[in-house]
């Protein structure tokens, strides 16, 4: 900032040395300059005109401030034309222009801070104004002799006198200002910023300041600082502060204007300029914010949607400053107390992080490099952001659990998980980026984590590679809008498609993560999804999507601080449980922006969506021949009509959710069938199987009755189970047959797999058909099917979902299947096809 006017260093006011001198100059000049010179200048503000009038009236000693005719518009900063007097005086300087400037500075001490700079700038620029009016005297005088002067608003607005003077002066000023307003609107000048920056161009600051003055005075709030006189450029004006010839916009002006506009918008009814709409103010604010904080337009627009204005500025300010360095004690090797002691001995200034963390320390400053101390090398602590500790706390891993960390680099959260588990259990730390994996390896070894396996997969492959985890942590790759302080490039290089691309990837990863959790885990079944972004598209939207697509629900994260996630945002509406998610911001919590959501999976089955499965049916068709070879003989016995009906339905069903069916194969089918089978008699089994079939290939079983039910309600298998039981019972005999018949028609291999279970008891052929059906389901998801098939090493009935579709002829006894299915399910999940 330029030289600030220091109230304590005010120069002597009143008729003093300068005053005398200036007075002399003024009177001298007044003699020479044409009286109407000031008036002729169309640039004269109302005040200037008044002063000129006064002057002409012959107040020789009157400390009227005259605006030099050609005086450049004073920086509009000073309200009430204070600048103008300055400018005038500056311009009119005959004697010490500098002196005047300095005195101006002094005068302006009570005024706006930028005033001095502007004044000086002006002074420089309009150094040779003809008008030799020495405003200094006026200014000084105005303070001393308020009675004399009506004008000299600037002086009048000096600290203590301001209010009184303002009141007096406002009335005449108001009138003049209104006139000015009209004039200015025409002129379309820019606001003070241009004034200072581009004096040559703008001259209507004074004019603009007029209206602003009005606002201020009308609002009853006499602000000593520059009022936001010309907050908005007159209609039709373009952005001037970025004109190249002006050079860089004056950031001070911009900053001040930002504050002013925010103030106006806060109390829009009273503080607005007449004729200006809210959107104009907002647009101006947007441009100013973008200029001042160097943001791209897209991101700034998003942020303006996200935050109320007051918070917005705080948020932007917080992003300019790095967050404090925090570290996490590695409890595998040391205790926080000991570590703090050791670090303090080395010369590090630190404190415990907060009540919510037992292992965190925040470093204020350090005389040694905090990332190179012997304690660091010995793995006693890890440098980690405070917000990165939260997802692991939310996840709450228990000992002897199996945890998957899908995007683990650089390994901070993984190591935290390991230390919470005390090196028991297993952690699978995965990341898709090979370079960053090296840091994971290094960190985990350094911190003494022994129960980790580090792998290099794309997270979306996960349930296929290995699934059945007790807990999963997904720290999804995101746009990074919460960590702008770490990476300022995000301000400008993110746009709409980046966000959407991230969101798409996050949705895929989240679905894969959900599928990798084992809902029936004794101690777990939880998933934590977190991002370091604050965008709704990447957070609430993704979570909401997962809630619709999978059998999960949101549970409280266990973090008692942080802002709740949105349940609605602009045109979107989210599930109400999104209130249990948590958002963290840099400006409110002093940690990186973050979003955390904790899911609990309550069923391993995948609900089928309404989209048909017909698309998937076709790929499975080729598989049919293999299965059909065995099945056809049996299926042929079935009624062709049902077959056809089933086929149609199957196709429809298949369209619904390929993923779902595949998932069913992996988990759902086996699980579903397991649960059903184990608990029910053969009938139930049949029902279950038919239900499964329905879920996977809804209409396949041709359960004519059931089809309609299935079609629309695949999502909720359990309710369907209830309803379908009866239907299934009815069709107990029928479905198997229909299944057989359907099989050749529809490529629902998986279904066949499912059906065998109940069918085995009913019909020997049912096994194959069931297997086939299941295989159909498998086939629907080519890749998943492959995985499935591999996993199904054993051709058990219930395991058929996992069994390769090729091995269709499996006549596992129903009973055996039941128990085996349960048991086999687990190993099936855990065993990985090599």
């Amino acid at each position, binding site marked *: 900032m330029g030289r600030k006017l220091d109230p304590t260093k005010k120069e002597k006011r009143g008729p003093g040395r300068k005053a005398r001198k200036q007075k002399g100059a003024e009177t001298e000049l007044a003699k020479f300059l044409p009286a109407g010179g000031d008036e002729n200048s169309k640039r004269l503000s109302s005040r200037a005109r008044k002063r000129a009038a006064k002057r002409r009236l012959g107040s020789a000693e009157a400390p009227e401030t005259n605006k030099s005719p050609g005086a450049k518009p004073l920086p509009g900063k000073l309200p009430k034309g204070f600048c103008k007097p300055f400018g005038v005086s500056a311009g009119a300087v005959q004697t010490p222009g500098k002196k005047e400037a300095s005195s101006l500075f002094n005068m302006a001490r009570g005024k706006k801070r930028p005033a001095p700079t502007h004044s000086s700038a002006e002074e420089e620029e309009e150094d040779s104004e003809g008008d030799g009016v020495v405003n200094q005297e006026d200014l000084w005088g105005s303070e001393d002799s308020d009675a004399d002067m009506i004008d000299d608003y600037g002086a009048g607005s000096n600290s203590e006198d301001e209010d009184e003077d303002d009141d007096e002066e406002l009335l005449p000023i108001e009138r003049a200002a209104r006139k000015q307003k009209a004039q200015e609107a025409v002129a379309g000048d820019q606001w003070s910023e241009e004034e200072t920056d581009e004096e040559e161009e703008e001259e209507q600051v004074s004019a603009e300041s007029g209206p602003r003055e009005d606002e201020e005075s009308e609002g009853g709030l006499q602000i000593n600082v520059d009022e936001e006189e010309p907050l908005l450029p007159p209609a039709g004006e373009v952005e001037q502060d970025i004109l190249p010839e002006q050079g860089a916009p004056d950031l001070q002006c911009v900053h001040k204007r930002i504050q002013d506009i925010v103030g106006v918008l806060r109390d829009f009814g009273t503080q607005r300029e007449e004729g200006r709409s809210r959107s104009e103010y907002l647009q101006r604010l947007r441009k100013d914010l973008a200029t001042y904080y160097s943001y791209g337009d897209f991101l700034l627009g998003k942020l303006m949607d996200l935050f109320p204005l007051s918070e917005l500025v705080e948020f932007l300010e917080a992003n300019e400053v790095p967050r404090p360095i925090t570290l996490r004690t590695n409890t595998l090797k040391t205790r926080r107390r000991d570590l703090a002691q050791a670090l303090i001995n080395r010369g590090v200034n630190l404190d415990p992080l907060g009540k919510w963390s037992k292992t965190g320390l925040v470093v204020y400053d350090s005389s040694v490099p905090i990332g190179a101390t012997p304690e660091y090398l010995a793995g006693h602590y890890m440098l980690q952001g405070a917000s990165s500790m939260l997802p692991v706390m939310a996840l709450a891993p228990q000992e002897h659990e199996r945890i998957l960390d899908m995007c683990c680099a650089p390994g901070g959260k993984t190591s935290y998980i390991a230390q919470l588990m005390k090196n028991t259990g297993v952690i699978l730390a995965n990341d898709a980026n090979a370079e960053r994996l090296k840091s994971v*390896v290094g960190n985990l070894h350094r911190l003494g984590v022994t129960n980790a*396996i580090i792998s290099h997969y794309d997270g979306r492959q996960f349930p296929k590679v290995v699934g059945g985890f007790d807990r999963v942590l997904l720290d999804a790759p995101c746009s990074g809008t919460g960590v702008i302080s770490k990476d300022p490039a995000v301000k400008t290089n993110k746009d709409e498609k980046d966000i959407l691309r991230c969101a798409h990837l996050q949705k895929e990863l989240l679905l894969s993560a959900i599928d990798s959790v084992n809902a029936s885990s004794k101690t777990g079944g939880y998933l934590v999804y977190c991002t370091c972004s604050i965008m709704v598209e990447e957070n609430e939207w993704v979570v909401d999507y997962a809630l619709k697509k999978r059998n999960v629900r949101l549970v409280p994260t266990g973090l008692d601080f942080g802002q709740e996630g949105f349940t609605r945002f602009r045109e979107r509406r989210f599930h109400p449980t999104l209130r249990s998610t948590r958002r963290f911001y840099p400006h409110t919590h002093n940690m990186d922006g973050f979003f955390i959501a904790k899911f609990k999976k309550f069923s391993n089955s995948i609900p089928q969506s309404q989209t048909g499965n017909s698309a998937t049916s076709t790929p499975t068709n080729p598989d049919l021949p293999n299965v059909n070879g065995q099945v056809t003989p049996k299926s042929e016995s079935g009624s062709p009509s049902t077959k056809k009906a089933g086929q149609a339905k199957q196709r429809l069903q298949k369209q619904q959710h390929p993923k779902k069916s595949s998932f069913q194969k992996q988990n759902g089918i086996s699980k579903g069938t397991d649960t059903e089978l184990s608990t029910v008699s053969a009938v139930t089994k049949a029902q279950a199987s038919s239900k499964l079939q329905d879920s996977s290939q809804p209409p396949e079983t041709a359960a004519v009755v059931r089809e309609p039910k299935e079609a629309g309600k695949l999502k909720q298998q359990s309710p369907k189970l209830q309803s379908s039981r009866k239907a299934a019972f009815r069709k107990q005999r029928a479905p198997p047959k229909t299944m057989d018949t359907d099989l050749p028609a529809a490529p629902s291999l998986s279904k066949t797999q499912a059906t065998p279970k109940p069918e085995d008891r009913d019909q020997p052929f049912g096994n194959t058909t069931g297997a086939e059906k299941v295989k159909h389901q498998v086939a629907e998801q080519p890749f998943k099917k492959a995985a499935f098939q591999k996993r199904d090493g054993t051709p058990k009935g219930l395991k058929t979902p996992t069994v390769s579709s090729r091995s269709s002829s499996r006549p596992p006894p129903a009973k055996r299947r039941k128990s085996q299915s349960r048991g086999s399910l687990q190993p099936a999940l855990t065993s990985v096809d090599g």
Partner: protein
Amino acid sequence: MRPLTEEETRVMFEKIAKYIGENLQLLVDRPDGTYCFRLHKDRVYYVSEKILKLAANISGDKLVSLGTCFGKFTKTHKFRLHITALDYLAPYAKYKVWIKPGAEQSFLYGNHVLKSGLGRITENTSQYQGVVVYSMADVPLSPLNLPRHIKEGEKLLLHHQEAN
């Protein structure tokens, strides 16, 4: 990932035995389960069997690391011990060397240690003996080989082994 061959096992155990002697058996039979060594891309990993089971599911080219890396085999099939093995060697070390606090920092950052920097040393440490270096606070710093005969005022070439 595969188990070590006989030859590799022999070489590795020889190396480790230099530091911990006969205590090697304790590494394998631990009270909390059986641990074993596995070779993956020329690196030897020390893992418990539980982890091994899960790691078997991961394809070889995607597996990066598991458990603790003890060291690696060079192209000429010599075994290099890594610092990550320190946690397991330190408790069983037969010969120990303590260095003074002043020398500790310098040693950690890769410099040599003079004899004057030695605080304590186990008796009967012969030349070229594998020792584990400790700080005065009994924090193990590194395993390494004593380079030469200890003479008064002579520089001991104690290099700090870096790993990973």
